[in-house]
């Protein structure tokens, strides 16, 4: 029984990747859940907002790199991120003014908003293709590893190596900071409380003198910031491929629904639940089982990695069947 090696292998192949992925999903789910709670519809364009924003970040990163600016061991994209967020927010606020505001005034059914978001999705998809194309792009620079496999093996003398990439570390740190800032904003600031009040009881909020358009603007800006951050972190960690961002829409929705649509805490919890489930179910456990003394026949892989998002789908169905309001009692409207 080689417990140490087993632990290192679990950390390296399951815990660290799942934590990073979970953080990215959490950021995406936070955006979706905010839009659902306050604007009261499921934004199908969220994935393409992530792609579009990340595309902008990539352009700015290239520009910065061309100017010789860099951030040392950290990726230059982090410098470009605020600019990308600002640009994407301007566009998103534009879409609200041009598209969604009309239906808000008319008090249209939520499904109409969803359909409109499909139109916005097409447009953002096209724009992303326009600005960065459809190919795979790697835009990370700076140091790659915080801890690399060889160094780890040298320090510990273990057979299993541990790699902790800079992109993974950044993901965890940025996500923690973003969540801290968001929760502080929602729970301590006047505007944040006003947003929560508006999500809770729209009529009473209006009665209290809360300006609905301001709340809407804030929501879009925060959701876009979260989306672009999530997209950039995901792209730094893996690579930027526009289609991936459409595919990640399903796990993000699953995460938001699992946690309870409209509940920010739920979105974070849901993100990690979905990520860990996906990784655990598609990981071949043979190696670790061997370390723990078992002699497994097959790979012990429950599902092939191609079916990763089938996992989030199953989680989604289970939640919808047994507890549609999610873990943290979101809104089912």
């Amino acid at each position, binding site marked *: 029984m080689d417990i140490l090696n087993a632990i290192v292998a679990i950390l390296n192949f399951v815990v660290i990747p799942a934590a990073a992925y979970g953080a990215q999903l959490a950021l995406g789910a936070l955006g979706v859940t905010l839009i659902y709670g306050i604007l009261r519809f499921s934004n199908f364009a969220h994935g393409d907002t992530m792609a579009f924003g990340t595309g902008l970040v990539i352009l700015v990163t290239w520009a910065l790199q061309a100017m010789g600016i860099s951030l040392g061991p950290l990726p230059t994209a982090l410098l470009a991120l605020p600019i990308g967020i600002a640009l994407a927010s301007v566009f998103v606020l534009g879409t609200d003014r041009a598209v969604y505001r009309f239906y808000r005034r008319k008090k249209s059914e939520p499904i109409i908003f969803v359909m409109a978001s499909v139109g916005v999705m097409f447009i953002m998809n096209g724009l992303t293709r326009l600005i960065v194309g459809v190919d795979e792009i790697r835009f990370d620079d700076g140091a790659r590893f915080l801890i690399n496999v060889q160094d780890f093996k040298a320090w510990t003398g273990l057979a299993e190596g541990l790699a902790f990439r800079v992109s993974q570390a950044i993901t965890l740190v940025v996500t923690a900071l973003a969540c801290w800032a968001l929760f502080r904003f929602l729970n301590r600031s*006047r505007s944040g*409380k006003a947003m929560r*009040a508006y999500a809770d*009881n729209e009529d*009473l909020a209006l*009665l*209290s*003198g809360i300006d609905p358009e301001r709340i809407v603007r804030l929501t879009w800006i925060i959701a876009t910031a979260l989306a672009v951050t999530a997209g950039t972190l995901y792209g730094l960690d893996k690579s930027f491929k526009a289609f991936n961002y459409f595919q990640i829409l399903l796990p993000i929705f699953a995460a938001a629904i699992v946690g309870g649509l409209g509940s920010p805490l739920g979105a974070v919890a849901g993100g990690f639940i979905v990520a860990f489930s996906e990784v655990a179910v598609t990981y071949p456990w043979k190696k670790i089982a061997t370390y723990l003394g078992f002699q497994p026949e097959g790979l012990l892989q429950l599902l092939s990695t191609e079916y990763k998002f089938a996992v989030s789908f199953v989680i989604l169905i289970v939640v919808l069947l047994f507890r549609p309001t999610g873990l943290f009692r979101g809104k089912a409207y």
Partner: protein
Amino acid sequence: MAEPYLSATAMRGGYGKADILNGCTLNVDKGQIAVIVGPNGAGKSTAMKAVFGMLNLREGAVTLGGEDITRLTPQERVHKGMGFVPQTHNIFPTLTVEENLEMGAFIREDDYRETMEQVYHLFPAVADKRNQNAGELSGGQRQQVAVGRALMTRPQLLMLDEPTAGVSPIVMDELFDRIIEVARTGISILMVEQNARQALEIADIGYVLVQGANRYTDSGKALMADPEVRRTFLGG
């Protein structure tokens, strides 16, 4: 006689084409408790909502402290000194009690902590639970939070739409006691109530509405003593 603080005269109007209010008049003096009672469908809540500006009047006028506010939106009337407690959905359930009060004071730009302490003083049961989510409180306590929320703007006129709907008799007594306390601080109260008997007991002036028009208007005691009113609306 001094000009009444709130004066809503000859109101005629409704939500759509049909008129619910047919020439209804309500007056409330400073520090008075005015109660609107009447049978179901008489237009009691509608009358109050009209005073608050939640529906357009075809005819009639509303003045507050001498100022004509007929054209103002509800939010603007809040600025002018009105407070409104809806019958249902009158709190923010996932916000704490304290946050509910903070939201009540949203339009205020000055320091409202003193007002908050006054509200807590008025509703001690709620003060104990100030950091709990308002939605987790009992029915009566929730109503207290709802009233407290409306009081945060220091209104001159507080309007309550059936505040004791669905609460037990003990809680109802408690609520009415609190309402009397509020009135004692000089705030005028305009209240719609189904529990006519108990409401009229504390009313300085009572309006009995039938089919959107005034039927009887008198002090609460007088109405309670009137055999006609007793027979028709108070069950003898």
